[in-house]
């Protein structure tokens, strides 16, 4: 065949192909023809309901509240509509109305495609407006769910949700779109992938006056929304709320853990806030700003973010490590003449108490001299010129106890606390040498040390368990899932101290409560083991700290209470802990402790301090 002919044949075939396609679209394709009136494909997102949150006993903590967004198609608004009435019904001003309709047309917004006119309309407002919806063509509702809180408590643990930001959207690989909600703190944040569920989508064909014609391509691209999974938290909401009541008008934190499971029973940061304030609604911005500006920082979760010096509760740790390392024996007697000569001219005071003839008595009376000595012996184990080695050995033990590191896997914003090692002091003292005497304050839990209340509670847990802990966690179960999302939630972590050494330490802790510094923590019929701490505070009254576990054998609860500016550990922290242990183990407060309960409930450290 000649080339010109072939070329013409190619032209004719191409034209025929186009013609066939046109014919298919315009003459034969029934599905296309059936929506001859259709003018738009509308993508309707089906929002899943977010998973609910329960406490360990099945009490509902967080549920979903209906909330509405109002969408509008600009070109379908009736120009004659009664705007005054419209604004009245929705509680908005005329300016807002005009503003909300003014969009940069072209690009993201089209006058023929729905966009959000007003978001987060409360159910009451919506109920009023929806009766008149048909008077305002062009406007359509969209149901979303906001969070509601059944109990006024556990605000920090539960956390809150907020609108996703740009970075979260771009990092999510299409999971989130502008206007979606995402867990921002607490459990809402930790278990976001489980709670959020999966969005569904519906493609709907609409004609030129906005009537639905039918599903796009018969609905093959549609998918249903999948609800989020419900969480069962480890919290005991009764204990939590009671703890919050006891902490009213005090600044500080409480953490309670079930020792043999690592389950967190209560986590209180005080002052707190009503979680319902931060639910999604139109006033949320104002509430949030007020909370953020409060000088007592109610949004700051003191249980995991505040890093406090541990004070004398740390003596239990020093004692255990000294016993394990063999630098002391339980029956060693150390002289305490009301003071400890650290170095010539450097005398550290101790309070008056009976002679510490063994380690239990030393703990019972919290003898400073005794633990200064043990600490120096530990650090000087390899000779006083090789304190680096001694301190780093000590540091390794502290790391095993979970200090200086994040404990949970759920709270990613958790603070680590701080424990110094030799590199730290080499850097601080640069060229000059340092010795055990230089850093001896560590021996009684002062100096550079800092811990979160969670770490202190975990210490109580380790003591109660005689040598191990399980990663503290807030999730008991994801409903309808057999396994926990993290295998660490039932894996023992050993602190590498022989259980035998816990005996004398726990003897001392029991005596602290029966006849030592924490007698106000006593609970009738329950043997509590505890240790007080009084942390010197250069800015005001001492901080009061107390850790405890109970009962002595097979403990059911380990607890740490830290109250800022409350004086000695025995004075405020110990009675709070005692009341919580009693409430948790006995479900009620005995008659003889009622006056103490009332006294604690009425103690107002915030306004007292404010006055002075």
């Amino acid at each position: 065949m000649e080339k010109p002919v072939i070329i013409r044949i190619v032209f004719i075939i191409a034209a025929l192909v186009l013609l066939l396609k046109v014919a298919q679209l315009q003459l034969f394709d029934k599905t296309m023809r059936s929506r001859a009136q259709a003018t738009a494909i509308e993508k309707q997102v089906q929002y899943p309901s977010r998973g609910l949150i329960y406490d360990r006993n099945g009490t509902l903590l967080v549920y979903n509240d209906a909330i509405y967004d109002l969408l509008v198609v600009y070109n379908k608004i009736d120009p004659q509509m009664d705007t005054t009435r419209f604004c009245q019904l929705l509680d908005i001003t005329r300016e807002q109305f005009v503003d909300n309709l003014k969009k940069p047309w072209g690009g993201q917004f089209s006058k023929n495609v729905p966009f959000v006119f007003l978001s987060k309309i409360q159910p009451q407002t919506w109920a009023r407006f929806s009766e008149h919806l048909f008077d305002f063509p062009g406007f359509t509702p969209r149901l979303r769910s906001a969070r509601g809180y059944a109990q006024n408590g556990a605000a920090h643990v539960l956390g809150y949700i907020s609108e996703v930001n740009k970075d979260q959207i771009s990092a999510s690989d299409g999971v989130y779109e502008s206007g979606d909600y995402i867990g921002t703190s607490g459990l809402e944040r930790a278990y976001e992938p489980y709670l959020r569920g999966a969005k569904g989508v519906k493609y709907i064909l609409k004609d030129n006056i906005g009537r639905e014609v039918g599903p796009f391509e018969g609905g093959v691209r549609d998918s249903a929304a999948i609800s989020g999974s419900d969480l069962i938290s480890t919290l005991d909401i009764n204990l939590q709320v009671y703890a919050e009541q006891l902490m009213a008008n005090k600044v500080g934190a409480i953490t309670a853990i079930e020792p043999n499971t690592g389950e967190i029973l209560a986590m209180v940061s005080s002052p707190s806030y009503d979680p319902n304030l931060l639910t999604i609604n139109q006033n949320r911005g104002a509430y949030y700003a007020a909370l953020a500006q409060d000088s007592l920082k109610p949004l700051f979760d003191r249980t995991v973010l505040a890093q406090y010096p541990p004070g004398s509760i740390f003596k239990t740790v020093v004692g255990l490590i000294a016993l394990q390392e063999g630098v002391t024996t339980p029956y060693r007697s150390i002289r305490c003449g009301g003071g400890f000569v650290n170095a010539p001219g450097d005398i550290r005071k101790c309070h008056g108490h009976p002679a510490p003839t063994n380690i239990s008595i030393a703990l019972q009376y919290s003898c400073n001299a005794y633990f200064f000595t043990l600490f120096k012996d530990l650090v000087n184990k390899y000779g006083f010129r090789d304190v680096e080695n001694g301190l780093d050995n000590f540091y390794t033990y502290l790391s095993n106890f979970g200090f200086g590191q994040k404990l949970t896997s759920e709270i990613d914003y958790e603070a680590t606390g701080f424990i110094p090692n030799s590199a730290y002091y080499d850097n601080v003292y640069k060229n000059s040498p340092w010795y055990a005497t230089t850093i001896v304050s560590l021996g009684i839990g002062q100096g550079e040390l800092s811990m979160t209340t969670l770490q202190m509670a975990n210490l109580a847990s380790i003591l109660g368990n005689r040598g191990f802990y399980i990663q503290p966690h807030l999730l008991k179960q994801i409903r309808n899932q057999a396994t926990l999302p993290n295998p660490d939630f039932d894996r023992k972590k050993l602190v590498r101290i022989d259980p035998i050494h816990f005996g004398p330490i726990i003897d001392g802790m029991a005596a602290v409560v029966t006849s030592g510094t924490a007698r106000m923590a006593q609970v009738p019929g329950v043997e509590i083991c505890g240790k007080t701490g009084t942390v010197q505070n250069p800015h005001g009254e001492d901080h009061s700290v107390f850790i405890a576990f109970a009962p002595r054998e097979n403990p059911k609860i380990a607890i740490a209470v830290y109250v800022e500016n409350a004086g000695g550990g025995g004075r405020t922290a110990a009675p709070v802990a005692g009341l919580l242990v009693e409430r948790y183990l006995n479900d009620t407060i005995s008659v003889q402790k009622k006056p103490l309960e009332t006294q604690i409930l009425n103690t107002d450290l915030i306004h007292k301090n404010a006055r002075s």
Partner: protein
Amino acid sequence: MTTRGTAPVKHIDWLTFFLYLSLSVIGWLMINAAESSSDPNTTGFSFNDGAGKQLLLLVVSLVVFWIFFFIDFKFWNTFAYIIFALTLTLLVLVLPFGDKIKGATSWFNLFGFSLQPSEFAKMGTCLALASYLSYHKTKLRNRKHIFVSIGIILLPAVLIILQPDPGSALVYLSFFLVLYREGLTHWIYVIAGIFITLFILSLIYTVGSVFVLILAVSSAIYLLQEKRHWAWWITYAALAITSVIGLGLGWQQELIGAHAIFLMTLLILAFRKARFRILILGIPSILICLGFSYMSRFMFDRVLEPHQQDRINVWLRPELSDPRGSMYNLSQSKLAISSGGFQGKGYLKGTLTKLNYVPEQSTDFIFSTIGEEQGFLGSFGIIAMFLILLVRITMIGERAKSSFTRTYAYGLAGILFIHFFINIGMTMGLVPVIGIPLPFISKGGSSLLAFSMMMAILLKLDMARYAY
């Protein structure tokens, strides 16, 4: 009797001129329809709106058309390279001095009109290529001459890619039509066709399935060549039927293995019979095809930018595309066309057109306005007019006494053809969405003016038949 300089209107090819003018006027009417939606006050005559501007440019084009008739026909061959150089200069200058619109620096802004050099570069390239190919010493059997021809085509294309406007650059592939007419072997086109098919298949289906296909086709070709015993054919048929079923069940690896063993057996027999020519040609070809198929998929997944992947996905794998995102233009355009039905909704009565439901409707998607408002009758009419025009141009080429006229005619036919096929095809999802205009019809002054000038040159060259 005629002189070279003056143009007797009776010698003009009336059919071509009539088609050109009709398409341009239809274009103006359609732009008016597509744009009337946004502002109900447009009349099509006010110079402030798109249709009015288009009308003004149509008048300007006709004036230029008329002026070109007074230019000696030898001018175009003589000055072909100079015109080519001028248009190339414009393409270079637009890179630093042009305006950036939608991410491409393709425009000069002159007195409120935008000038798009890439539209005029087609004319320059067409003239230069025609001049080179019609030179009596140029032979397309000579490899050096082939390379020079391809160089003339690639030079402007590369400059346009730099803008970057890959769609407009793609148009330059159309010059392979004139190379074919002037002697380039058809094997190149067959091979290109095979590669394009492999590319498309590799994206639509899995690479494994394409491998099975390549091996099966290779075996078939070999069996046909060798006229083997019928037992071979029965085995082959069994294998083929198993493959069709097996691919649906996902037995890709097993099937690749089976086909490879079958083909290997054939090749070993070929070796024993000392049929080395088949082995030397066949084995590398098969390996290249397999490699190309694999690379197509690899390049698509790893090298292409997401927006480029989207374009191709919309075309080949629409199920992966977002109906409200990348597929929006196309589905709205298809919807508009199909809603026209047999008769169409009538001029200025297209509801989708009026509501602006098809983005870029007056430019690249103008065919959807025709489809919606004029229906199948209108679409048929437009396609038929283009087809007649294309065939007519090839006829003008064939009847010309000078080979310059012939090569120029085929060059122009190629450009018109690729615009026509890709533009109309993309509004219906037949080819990927590539932003090039429908000649004479799409809104855009540069495009209309450049195509008018090219038509004017063709008609003038055609009149030269009577010059001797």
